[in-house]
C-alpha cells in the first residue's frame, strides 16, 4: 500500500499544491516558494485575454460537436453488433473495431494524414477517377470535422463495450412479452431496448459533460500547428503553449486551475441533473 499511497501524495496532492503558482509571478531563478505573490492578477489578465476566450470557445465548440456526432456512434454500433446472430462474426468485428483504441494519437494522426492529405490516398483515388480533390489536412474549415472523425475512428469501437454489456442485461423475456403483445421491431427497440440501456447512456453523458473542457489534449496538440491557433487552440493547448513553451508559468497555471474548477462544478451539476432524472449518475 505504501508505494501507491506515496505516489498519490507526491504526484497528485504534491503537484496539486503547486497550483499556488497561479497566484504568483513565477520567477524560475527564485523557484516556486520564493516567487512573489500577485493575488488574482493572473486571473484578471486571463479574463481580459481574447486568446483565452478564443481557446475556451474552440474547446466548447469541439466538445459540443463531439457530443452530437460522436456520442451516439458507439450506441448505434453496439446495437448493430448486438443484433448480429453469428457469434464468430460478432467476435471478429469486435476485435477489429476495438483495435484503434490502442494506437497512440501520433499513429492515428499520421494515418489520417496519409489517407486524407493533399497527396494522400483519398485524393489520389479522386484524382485518378477524374473528380475534384479535397484539401482536408491543414484546412481550418475542415478541422472540426476532421477532429471528430478521428475520435470516432479511434474510440467508437471501444466505446461499445459498456453498451454491449448493458444490452446483454436487458431481460430476454421482455422482448418476448412485447412480441406477443404485437410490438414490431421498432416498438420493441423503443420500449424495451432503449429503456434498458438508459442508465448507462446517462452515466456516460454525465461523465462526458464533466469532461467537456478536456477535448483530447494530445490530439489537439499534434495538429495545432497545421491549422494554426485560430481554430486549433483549446484550453489544454493554451495552457501548454503559454506555460511550458512560453514560460509564462503563473498565467498558464491560472488557466489550468480555472479549467479544473469549472470541470468539477460541471461534474457535480451533471450528476445532480442525473439524480433529478431518477438515475444513479456517477456517485450518490
Amino acid at each position, binding site marked *: *500500500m505504501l*508505494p*501507491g*499511497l506515496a*505516489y*498519490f501524495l507526491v*504526484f*497528485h*496532492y*504534491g*503537484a*496539486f499544491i*503547486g*497550483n499556488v503558482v497561479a497566484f504568483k509571478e513565477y520567477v524560475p531563478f527564485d*523557484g*516556486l516558494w520564493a516567487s512573489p505573490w500577485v493575488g488574482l492578477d493572473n486571473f484578471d489578465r486571463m479574463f481580459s485575454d481574447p486568446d483565452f476566450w478564443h481557446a475556451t470557445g474552440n474547446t466548447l465548440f469541439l466538445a459540443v460537436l463531439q457530443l452530437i456526432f460522436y456520442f451516439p456512434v458507439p450506441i448505434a*454500433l453496439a446495437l*448493430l453488433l448486438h*443484433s*448480429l446472430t453469428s457469434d464468430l*462474426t460478432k467476435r471478429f*468485428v469486435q*476485435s*477489429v*473495431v476495438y483495435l*484503434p483504441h*490502442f494506437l*497512440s*494519437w*501520433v*499513429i492515428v*494522426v*499520421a494515418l489520417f*494524414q*496519409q*489517407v486524407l492529405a493533399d*497527396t494522400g*490516398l483519398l485524393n*489520389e483515388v479522386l484524382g485518378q477517377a477524374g473528380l475534384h480533390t479535397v484539401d482536408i489536412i491543414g484546412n481550418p474549415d475542415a478541422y472540426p470535422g476532421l477532429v471528430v472523425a478521428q475520435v470516432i*475512428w479511434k474510440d467508437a*469501437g471501444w466505446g461499445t*463495450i*459498456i453498451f*454491449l*454489456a448493458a444490452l446483454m442485461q436487458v431481460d430476454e423475456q421482455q422482448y418476448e412479452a412485447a*412480441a406477443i403483445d404485437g410490438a414490431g*421491431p421498432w416498438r420493441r427497440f423503443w420500449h424495451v431496448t432503449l429503456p434498458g440501456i438508459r442508465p448507462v447512456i446517462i452515466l456516460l453523458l454525465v461523465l462526458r459533460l464533466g469532461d467537456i473542457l478536456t477535448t483530447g*489534449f*494530445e490530439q489537439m496538440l*499534434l495538429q495545432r500547428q497545421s491549422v494554426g491557433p485560430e481554430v486549433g487552440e483549446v484550453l*489544454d493547448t493554451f*495552457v501548454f503553449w503559454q*506555460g*511550458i513553451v512560453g514560460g509564462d*508559468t503563473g498565467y498558464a*497555471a491560472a488557466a*489550468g*486551475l480555472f479549467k*479544473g474548477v469549472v*470541470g468539477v462544478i460541471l461534474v457535480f451539476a451533471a450528476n445532480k441533473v442525473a439524480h433529478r432524472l431518477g438515475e444513479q449518475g456517477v456517485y450518490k
Partner: protein
Amino acid sequence: MERPKPVTKAAKAAAIVILLGLVLVPFLVIVSTSLASNREVVANGGWVLWPSDPTLRAYDQIFSGGVVSKALGVSVGLTVLGTLASLACTTFLAYALSRPGVFGGRPVLVLVLFTFLFPPGMIPAFLLVKGMGMVDSYLALVLPVLINVFNLVVLRGFFQGIPEELYEAARLDGASDWAILFKIVLPLSKAALAVVGLFYMCSYWNAWFHASIYMESTHWPLQQVLRTYVMGGAQIADTGLSEAGNVSAPQTMQMAVLVVATVPILLVYPFLQKYFTKGVLTGAIKS
C-alpha cells in the same frame, strides 16, 4: 422472434463491411507502402495499396542503428519496466483497498478517487517533475504516471469479487497477507491483471508528450521520433546506412517506422482481447 427481413440483413452486412474497411484499409496501405520499392512509391504518388515488388530495405535501414533503433530500445525498456512497476504498485494498493478493515482504508480510497475528479493540472505537474530534478531522466516518464485510478478501480473490484471463504480458509491455515495475495488472489485474478497490464503497456508504449517536454532528443522513445519524423515530415537522416547511397524514399521509411510503432500492440492484442469485456466491466460496474 420472426426472422429479420432480407433488406435488413443486407444493410447490416454492408454496414459491417464498410466498418471493417474503414479500420483495416489504412493499415493495409501503411504496411504495403513500407514494403514497396522507391519506383513504385513515386509512380503512385506516395502510397501503394499492394506492392508488386516487396522489399524490406526500409526496415533494414531503420534497424541499422540510427535514431529509430535507439528509440525502439528506449521504448521497449520503458514499456517493460514501466508496466512491471505500475502493475506491482497498482496491485498492492488495490489489494490493500479491497480488504475490509485495513487501517486507513476508507480515507485512502477517498483520497485516491478524488484525484480522478480533480487532477493537479499540467503546469504544477511540470514544475514538480522539474523541481525533483527528474528532467532528462527516464523516471520522469514513469513516476508521474505510475498508477492509473481507473486501472486501480478495476483491480480492486476484481479482488472484491473473490469469495470471502477463500480468505478465511487461508487465514486459518496461517497464511500471511502476502501469502494470501500471491498464492490465492493473484492466480485467481489473471484476467483482470492481463487487462490492466495491457492498458499500462499501451500507455507506456504510446507515450510521447512527457518525453517531448522532459527528454533530450537523444533519449526519445519511438512515438516521439515518429511524431518528429513522420508527422513533422523531417527526414530520417541518421539511419547509419545513409552513406550507402541506396536510400529508400522518405515515405517508405516513414511508413516502416509507423509499422514498427504499431506492431507490438498488434502482437499482444489478440492474446488479451478475450479478457477485455470481463475485465473492464467488473471495474466499471463496481465503481
